[in-house]
């Protein structure tokens, strides 16, 4: 029973449970992602936040034994509906992983264009424009515009991660999923990505998994705290960090466990 599509609401999970075989790693989670906001998912390792993120673009079902119960609604439409093509769906939801994953055999340009070309042939000028636009939005254009044909592996780790952001943005998704995008970056690279979050949320709905509580506090509008597969608390970021309502949340954000 899908609730009426709210224009303010982009993505929503309804009683989502994610399992590996018979073991549930995300339990009965209902969360809402308002359009053009940043939501941070925090919690200790193994709390299910990454698995939850991977349910939002149907990547979880590609893992060995991965399946879900419940619903995930994108613009009011259940993405797990049998009529929905998971491959097409993933083109509407971009994802960036913990470690930069540029395609090593492709140039910088081809990496960004990869997601566009998979949609079928497009005029050259259109691809050019989309690649430039995506690289600009990922704040990488000025650094790579003179070497678009060079291998993507020639870039630094932080640049590679921004390249992955650009690659995710090029097909014009509605939602951007970031899975600990700064885990392997140095402080400068981390700051770049965090600044990006602020700029990108004017156009995209962002969901970011992070181990870094300061990062969650800096970049997000809403923060959700997961523990052992349960959603413990969700709230506006400043409220969750200053006056959490649950004792577990308070213990975690004050560093008493996790």
């Amino acid at each position, binding site marked *: 029973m899908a609730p009426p599509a709210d224009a303010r609401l982009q993505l929503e999970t309804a009683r989502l449970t994610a399992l590996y075989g018979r073991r549930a790693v995300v339990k009965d989670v209902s969360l809402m992602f308002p359009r053009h906001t940043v939501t941070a998912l925090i919690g200790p390792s193994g709390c299910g936040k990454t698995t939850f993120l991977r349910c939002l673009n149907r990547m979880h079902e590609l893992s060995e034994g991965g399946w879900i119960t419940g619903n995930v609604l994108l613009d009011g439409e259940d993405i797990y509906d049998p009529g929905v093509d998971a491959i097409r769906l993933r083109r509407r939801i971009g994802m960036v992983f913990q470690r930069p994953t540029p395609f090593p055999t492709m140039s910088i340009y081809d990496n960004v264009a990869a*997601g566009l070309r*998979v949609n079928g042939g497009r005029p050259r000028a259109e691809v050019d424009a989309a690649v430039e636009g995506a690289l600009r939005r990922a704040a990488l254009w000025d650094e790579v515009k003179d070497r678009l044909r060079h291998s993507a*592996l020639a870039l630094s780790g932080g640049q590679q991660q921004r390249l992955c952001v650009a*690659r995710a943005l090029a*097909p014009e998704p509605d939602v951007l999923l970031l899975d600990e995008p700064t885990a392997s970056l140095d402080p400068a690279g981390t700051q770049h990505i965090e600044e990006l979050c602020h700029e990108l949320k004017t156009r995209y709905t962002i969901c970011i998994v992070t181990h870094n509580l300061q990062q969650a506090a800096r970049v997000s509008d809403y923060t959700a705290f997961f523990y052992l597969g349960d959603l413990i608390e969700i709230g506006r970021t400043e409220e969750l960090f200053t006056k959490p309502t649950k004792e577990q949340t308070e213990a975690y954000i004050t560093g008493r466990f996790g």
Partner: protein
Amino acid sequence: MSARRLRRRIVSGAMTALVAVLSFVAVLALVLILGYLVSKGASSLDWSFFVKNPVPAGQAGGGVANAIVGTVIIVGLAALIGLPIGIGTGLYLAEYGSGRLGWVVRFVADVLNGTPSIVVGIFAWTWLVKPMGHFSALAGSVALAVLMVPMLARTTEEMVRLVPHSLREAALALGYPRWRTSLRVIARTALAGIVTGCLVGIARVAGETAPLLFTALGNLNFSTSVLQPMQTLSLQIYVYATGPFDEWHRLAWAAALVLMGLVLLLSLAARWAIRQRHGAAR
């Protein structure tokens, strides 16, 4: 404390020396073979050796042009048949081969890999030469392709498995269908390794003699028809080396040197191919 350090140094030194000696022995075999080939065969190498066909026994001169061309044709045709099948099987094993069928294919490939090449020759004779009624280069190529396929399949599988899982996920998250992920991202990333595997596989079968004995048979004349018997360097060496004439023995050494040179050239090409890929990726 210092006694322990001394003991460590001595053991370390002894082990290093041992390993060095063993590597030397391994390299020595290659050096000896190559050196012996050069000393026995190089003097017979001249222009006519490469461009002339064999002359009747007893006469001086003549070359192995027919065998060189035959080797290129038979091995080339074998590669044409074997490479797509071998690489395709390898991709299948790596990407979809986790089930029962994958297990069976892998097992068959391993058994085939250990099959003596002469058995493969007999197989080709039974299924191709006998029904066709005559020996042919094509039958020889098929026999060599059968030898190549399991080798290529397992190498390709290994190379594809080396590609990090994160790349596959990145492609799938971009909305790549699975087959496209396999071809555009995984296979392309593993390409350098696959190319090397192919060249090594080709080099391996280029020197095979046994499977050609009753398939391609050999031919004293120059022939480029794949439906007719054809000469190869390995067959020529076999005939010349076991023959009674000194002139033949001399030519056998020279032909062996040429064959070795061809294989070496392929290996070098393999190295070069890898370096190109790596150079482009860095």
